[in-house]
């Protein structure tokens, strides 16, 4: 492998403000085999940052470290100016950090609407009488939130999306009318989108997406791209792990390449595409001389 192209930790082009996420010198190993080695990266608000790399490069491990499901051996994670390295996952989420999972982690026996609603209501105290009172008559799912949108409006911290009911949020991600579908009965592509909507429901400032495009057809993937760009334009920071390179190249402002747990390159889509180190990482050993024998 060629020498590591150090990521730019200094101020980012976007306004010079604080990065939404700063990962510094993070290392993780499992039983002596190292999964991440001194990873540094920053995700500025208002951008879509791509994270790519071959299978087993450590992308999902990095997501687990950022969201708190995996404790790093070394290094620190900052969410804006808060050190979240030792913080429990639910506390990070309350700060505005949402994620999706490569292998779906939906609330499978709830409906799509209920999945989103759990996210929307995540800051509500369950012992508040109002919620029990509503449940006396109405069914769970989308309907119960309808007509009470002002209350829910206040819950959604981010103004990224002007949507406040499960129905509207689902419609926003292209799943209008599907809120009564049971989540585990939906095709992968749609289920992934439900997961995305659930993440958006907590009003995140940083969105970690682990292969949201897999299982989507061409049109759906297009729509996903448009949505992510729009989310970023409202100031949200998006970190995207994706194998659909067409999508990554099209919407990312910046791309990081992870290989063997190291960040081997950082740059614009054009720079990454023509980077020989990246090609080598994707194509395997000895390929710098070209793709054929």
């Amino acid at each position, binding site marked *: 492998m060629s020498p590591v192209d150090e990521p730019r930790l200094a101020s980012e082009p976007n306004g010079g403000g604080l990065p939404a996420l700063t990962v510094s010198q993070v290392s993780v190993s499992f039983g002596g085999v190292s999964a991440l080695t001194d990873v540094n990266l920053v995700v500025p608000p208002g951008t879509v940052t791509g994270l790519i790399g071959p299978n087993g490069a450590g992308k999902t491990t990095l997501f687990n470290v950022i969201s708190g499901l995996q404790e790093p051996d070394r290094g620190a994670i900052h969410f804006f100016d808060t050190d979240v390295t030792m913080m429990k996952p639910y506390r990070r989420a309350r700060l505005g950090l949402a994620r999706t999972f490569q292998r779906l982690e939906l609330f499978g026996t709830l409906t799509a609407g209920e999945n989103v609603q759990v996210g929307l209501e995540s800051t509500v105290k369950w012992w508040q009488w109002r919620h029990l009172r509503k449940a006396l008559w109405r069914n769970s799912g989308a309907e119960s939130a309808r007509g009470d949108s002002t209350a829910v409006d206040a819950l959604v911290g981010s103004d990224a999306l002007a949507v406040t009911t499960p129905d509207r949020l689902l419609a926003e991600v292209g799943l209008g009318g599907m809120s009564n579908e049971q989540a585990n009965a939906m095709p992968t592509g749609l289920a992934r989108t439900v997961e995305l909507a659930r993440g958006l429901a907590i009003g995140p400032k940083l969105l970690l997406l682990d292969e949201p495009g897999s299982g989507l057809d061409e049109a759906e993937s297009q729509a996903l791209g448009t949505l992510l760009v729009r989310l970023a334009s409202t100031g949200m920071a998006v970190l995207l792990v994706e194998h659909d390179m*067409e999508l990554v190249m099209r919407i990312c402002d910046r791309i990081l390449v992870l290989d063997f747990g190291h960040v081997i390159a950082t740059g614009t889509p054009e720079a990454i595409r023509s980077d020989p180190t990246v090609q080598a990482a994707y194509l395997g050993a000895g390929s710098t001389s070209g793709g054929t024998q």
Partner: protein
Amino acid sequence: MTVASIPVPELSPATLSPALAIRAVRASYGRIEVLHGVDLTVPAGSVFALLGPNGAGKSTLLKVISGQMRPTAGEVVIGDKPVGKLPTEKLARTGLCSIPEGRGIFPNLTVRENLRIWTYRGGLSVKSVEEQTYATFPRLSERRKQLAGTMSGGEQQMLAISRALVTDPKVLLLDELSMGLAPLIVSELYELVGTLAAQGKTILLVEQFVTTALLVATRAAIMVHGKIQQEGTPSDMATAALSVYLSS
């Protein structure tokens, strides 16, 4: 690169009977279909590289072939016998060797104990298995009493592939052999794949790393979204794969 110097038998697929045929195979996880009708013919004695991006269904296809997953439609034929509902262990005993993604070893057993498991294939003695393995990989001999999981990734993969070496399979399935390994070790492993190929074994290998795989392959195909997108000579597929991966 040493790998290129390995003599690879020049075989034309047309002249050979297939060692492995996959016909209109569909498979799903629960309600989610991941293979949407895969057709693939691997001629006897060939090294077939199956390429494609993550999530294309390559590993799932190998699971179907090795009997770990039942297809929802279609059939798998090894030699001239349809696999039907044979359980994985029976398939293994009839000469199908499948080395799974990750490490095909038992991490909490020592190297010797791992080798002992290889004798379940039948007709093998522990002694001959050990001798053969250590002759090919002297490094494993030094580590014979060490827990396999504590070895380096490369050593683990050597141990994994030793199963293919000692059990004399008719058909060999290799899933992401090079994943997470340093280039030097990858070429050492592929040297062995070349040797196995030279012995006339039929090999189906799944790889993300195009070049490595294509150095030994005699035939290749690209799989995208649960289907075979194209099939051809290794050099044609190399170019095609690069465009699929980096969408250039």
